[in-house]
């Protein structure tokens, strides 16, 4: 297992994702002899996981069962331990495409946060690209570096514990893309420009507030960035369900000659109709942040 390469079988030392049910998953570090407690009972790593195929059904001690999934950056995003606000897959997918990431891309990122985006970047730039990620919070920088190793992507990433607004990304003229998720992105725009290749590249800044976007756009324009394009993407989840709609009873139809237009074949006058449809969740994320993209021209 690695976050950038599929394996067929679960091995000692892997990180696996236990699927407990819809929207309910947990990551597990697979260790010979270890056990994991779930609401369906205990999973014994040596017998239940190691040597099993990813995707297998595992019966827990209480008789309930779960599926064990191969980790992906997307599964990691929904199961990782939150040390900060994180970026979710909808924004991540947009960032990946709009930054034009692909195998071989060199990317700078700050802040690393809980590493949600970092894993997705690493997946996309592997096996020949590199991620330089800067996190000012020391505890977090250490923790995420440890996770990268556990997820076998450590060779693709350099974690730096410094203040990107003061000290930049620690590299110059090497990046194809730069991503900013910091409170004052406009203070780091100059460093972003310096980190990007002379031939140009793409930059993205994520900010929840429009004032941050305004200042960042100003700084980007001032630094000569082009195609400055702020946008927002929201995910809408459609819950599939079967609903039953009762039919109204308008009373006996006196004029039997002309059947009323509401008479339905095969359904009694006084019944209901079942219907496959989707419903919107009562509440949904109304905003995560604005994504401001721009292109650094050749300099």
């Amino acid at each position, binding site marked *: 297992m690695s976050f950038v390469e599929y394996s067929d079988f679960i091995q000692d030392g892997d990180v696996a994702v236990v699927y407990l049910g819809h929207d309910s998953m947990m990551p597990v570090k697979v260790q010979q002899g270890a056990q994991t407690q779930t609401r369906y009972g205990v999973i014994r790593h040596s017998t239940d996981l190691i040597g099993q195929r990813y995707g297998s059904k595992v019966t827990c001690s209480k008789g309930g069962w779960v599926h064990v999934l191969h980790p992906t950056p997307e599964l990691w995003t929904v199961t990782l331990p939150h*040390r900060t606000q994180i970026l979710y897959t909808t924004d991540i997918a947009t960032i990946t495409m709009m930054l034009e990431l692909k195998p071989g891309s060199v990317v700078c990122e700050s802040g690393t946060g809980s590493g949600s985006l970092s894993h997705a970047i690493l997946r996309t730039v592997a096996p020949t690209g590199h991620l330089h990620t800067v996190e*000012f*919070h020391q*505890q977090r920088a250490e923790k995420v570096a440890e996770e990268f190793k556990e997820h076998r992507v450590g060779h693709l990433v350099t974690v730096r514990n410094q*203040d990107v607004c003061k000290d930049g990304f620690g590299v110059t003229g090497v990046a194809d893309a730069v991503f900013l998720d*910091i*409170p*004052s992105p406009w203070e780091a725009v100059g460093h972003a420009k310096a980190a990007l290749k002379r031939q140009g590249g793409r930059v993205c800044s994520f900010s*929840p*507030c*429009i*004032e*941050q976007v305004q200042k960042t756009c100003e700084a980007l324009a001032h630094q000569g960035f082009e195609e400055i394009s702020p946008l927002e993407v929201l995910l*809408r989840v459609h819950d599939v369900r079967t*609903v039953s*709609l*009762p*039919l*109204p*009873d*308008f*009373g*006996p*139809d*006196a*004029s039997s000659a002309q059947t*009323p*237009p*509401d008479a*339905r074949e095969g359904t009694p006058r006084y019944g*209901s*109709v079942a*219907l*496959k*449809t989707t*419903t*919107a*969740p*009562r*509440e*949904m*994320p*109304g*905003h*995560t*942040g*604005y994504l401001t993209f721009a292109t650094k021209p050749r300099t």
Partner: protein
Amino acid sequence: MADNGDDDPQYTIKEGDHVVLKRGDIFKAIQVLPKKKVIFEKQWFFLDNAVGQLYSSTFEIVSGNLQPKKPKDTEGSSDAKEAGTDNRHIVDDGKSQKLTRDDIETLKEQGLKGQEIIQQLIDNSSTFRDKTEYAQDKYIKKKKKKYENTVTILKPSCRILAMMYHGREPGKICHLRYDALAQMLTLANIHAGSKVLVFETCAGLVLGSVMERMGGYGSVIQMYPGGGPGRAGMESFGLPAHFHDMLHDFPICHVNALLAGTLDTTAKDQSAVEKQSNMAADEEQNQPEVKQQVSPEEKSMETNTGDDAALDQETKERDQRREAKAEEKKVKLEEKRKKLAAVASLLEGRNADGLIIASRFHPCPVLMGLLKFLSPSRPFVVHSQYKEPLIECYTKLREQGGTVNLRLTDTWLRHYQVLPNRTHPLLLMSGGGGYLLSGTTVATDRAKPGGSQRSEEPAPKRQKLTDTEG
């Protein structure tokens, strides 16, 4: 609505008034009754002290009673906050708050008010000053929600009640969001002096909104399914008494008979009226809205009447009661008959000015049935939580003709936080407020009944085969 000064009783809370309690974004509709305990946001209190106070006043809840608050006291002193620029120095050790849960309980027992407790919490948080302004704001909001105990009493309005139902019990109003209701009232051109048909299972919210918009002028006919018209939501509007004179209701189980001209509402034939009454009884258990209108006191009275002693006496009384009930029933039936006759005559002309449908029923048969009561050139609007049944309505109407300007729409509503350097859309939004099908009736060619009414569009605008509407 001239400015009559504060003496105008419309600005003063009176006993018996329908009011709305408000805290933050939370609303609750309630009637002001003496010594009636009210639960709101997990707190118990009496409204008695509110009587005689002005509407829109804010009160503090102090040991179960309302205590008027000075205006402006509510506002947090957000300017006084001292904010860090980022949160790099915050180490999450779970120990940043020095006040324990027990400390807070002690503060509450000492009679500290919500605002004061929050200030205590801020003062005792070692990390508060290091948090970003954004995070500080979140913190205060969270704590406010937990410890504040003020309540504002509002005069009900369509806006407030629609927001209340949507926030508290969207299931009761078929997930009709307030902006969708707003669209319906406007698209149906609801206004004073018209004759409007309403078919709803939204607890009476739609009915009340229509009545408010008509200001007591014109007539509203509530078409209702078996079990009687649901009106709790309409009552919450606290509309002036004379507004109720314009309200009529008609059970839809007589629609076919009325349309066929076979509905007999004369005194001779009671069957139609009686059938309706029986059905109401039969179906009551299927009507959650109706059941909830029965107050707990009434229920307990019913269950406590049985007593094993003095059986004879009871039997006698029971007979008397039965007789009295039979007489009562007769009078009621006669009243009902008169009412039914009146509303039938309103409908018979098939000249209503508007139709609003928002119900848990399949909208297609409802719409096709009730549309027949409209004059030509009048608007109608149907709401449904689901899109598919409205697609069916649309298709049927296109096939049948007699309508133009058909549109299937929904609206997307977004609220914003606008604060210095912290402006953004709210992080949570409603998933959906339902779909609307709206249109306008037109005269159908009565010269050619039935037959090929399909091409209701002007000739040069032929449809492509796969497009129902261009």
